[in-house]
């Protein structure tokens, strides 16, 4: 185990991989208190930005700007994509391989255009 509980509501995780740039440094130590990152060791300024701000501005499920139940947002997404004649799926560069695989499967299913940041 690399995550060690130190005190109440505090964990320290070693060998953390930084999801900011493609250098993918994998030697960070992250201190978390009350589900907020309070200390980043070995990380550069960009890494600190990612982890220390990670608890801020979480997105919420919404349709047309109004907050909705999670399942409703997913259902609406499915309906919109099912009705599309020429959908675009874009992104993939800032998530993991499992999500990327699912994006491709979805694009295959609905005959979409699929692109990532390589083309930009």
């Amino acid at each position, binding site marked *: 185990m690399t995550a060690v509980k130190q005190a109440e509501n505090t964990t320290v995780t070693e060998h953390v991989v930084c999801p900011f740039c493609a250098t993918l440094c994998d030697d960070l130590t992250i201190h978390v208190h009350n589900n907020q990152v309070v200390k980043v060791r070995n990380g550069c300024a960009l890494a600190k930005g990612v982890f220390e701000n990670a608890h801020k501005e979480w997105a919420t499920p919404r349709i047309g700007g109004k907050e909705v139940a999670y399942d409703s947002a997913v259902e609406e997404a499915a309906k919109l994509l099912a009705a599309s*004649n020429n959908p675009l799926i874009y992104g993939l560069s800032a998530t993991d391989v499992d999500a990327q695989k699912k994006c491709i499967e979805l694009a295959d299913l609905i*005959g979409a255009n699929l692109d990532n940041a390589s083309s930009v």
Partner: protein
Amino acid sequence: MISLTLMEKLSIPMEADLITPDNLHDKSNDEIKRQTVYWGNKKKTIGDFFEVEGEKSDQITMVGDCAKVKLIGHKMSFGAVHVQGDTGYNTGSYMTGGSITIEGNTADYLGAMMEGGFIHLKGDAGHFVGGAYKGETVGMTGGEIVVEGNAGHETGGFMRRGLIGVGGNAGDFTGLFMLAGTIVVLGRAGERAGANMMRGSIILMNQTRLLPSFFQNGVVSTPAVDMILNRLRTLGMNPPLAGRYVRHTGDANTIARGEILMRVGNRNHVEV
């Protein structure tokens, strides 16, 4: 003549590679209407989008703004396609014979991987005229393309045989990786013409900055150039005749048997 009239302007593009004389010449209008096209992610028919009129023929006329209709004349080997408007991507790609005339503009990859035949574009072309698809190392291997307007980047990239004439300006990298064949630009060519070219000729009517891997190699005035320009004249262009050209050979980073001929003075040149 077969007449296809686009009923409504499209915003979602359509792949219509079956619109060729090869495929339509022996079909009745009803059969033509049933031919498959791909519109966005849907499988549709020609009849869903076009009014089909006329009788069996190897001549096809397309009426309307076909800017979102891709692959017109794809792999065609005979007959004629006349488009009274714009066309979309990949027009005349892999074509081996016959002719395509486009009154308007077209998108990228006009005549890409073309093997033979003639394409006459009255308006502007996109990038990769007579070019190679990504990863391919041989592009156009025969035929003739005339672009009366401007052409984009990499015109005649990887070209191995044939003739491309551009009446207006051309973008950067004209004749990129050219293996042989001839490209003529009557307007101005962009930068880096002939990058990595091995053989072949690029004839430019106006001065442009060449790569340092091209070396000036005398002034020529050859019947061969006049023959090419005469040929363009018969294809409907208006090149200046009888001129002298500064000859540059390169690209020095390949076998360097290519030449870029730049016309001395620019009298008679077509200002675009």
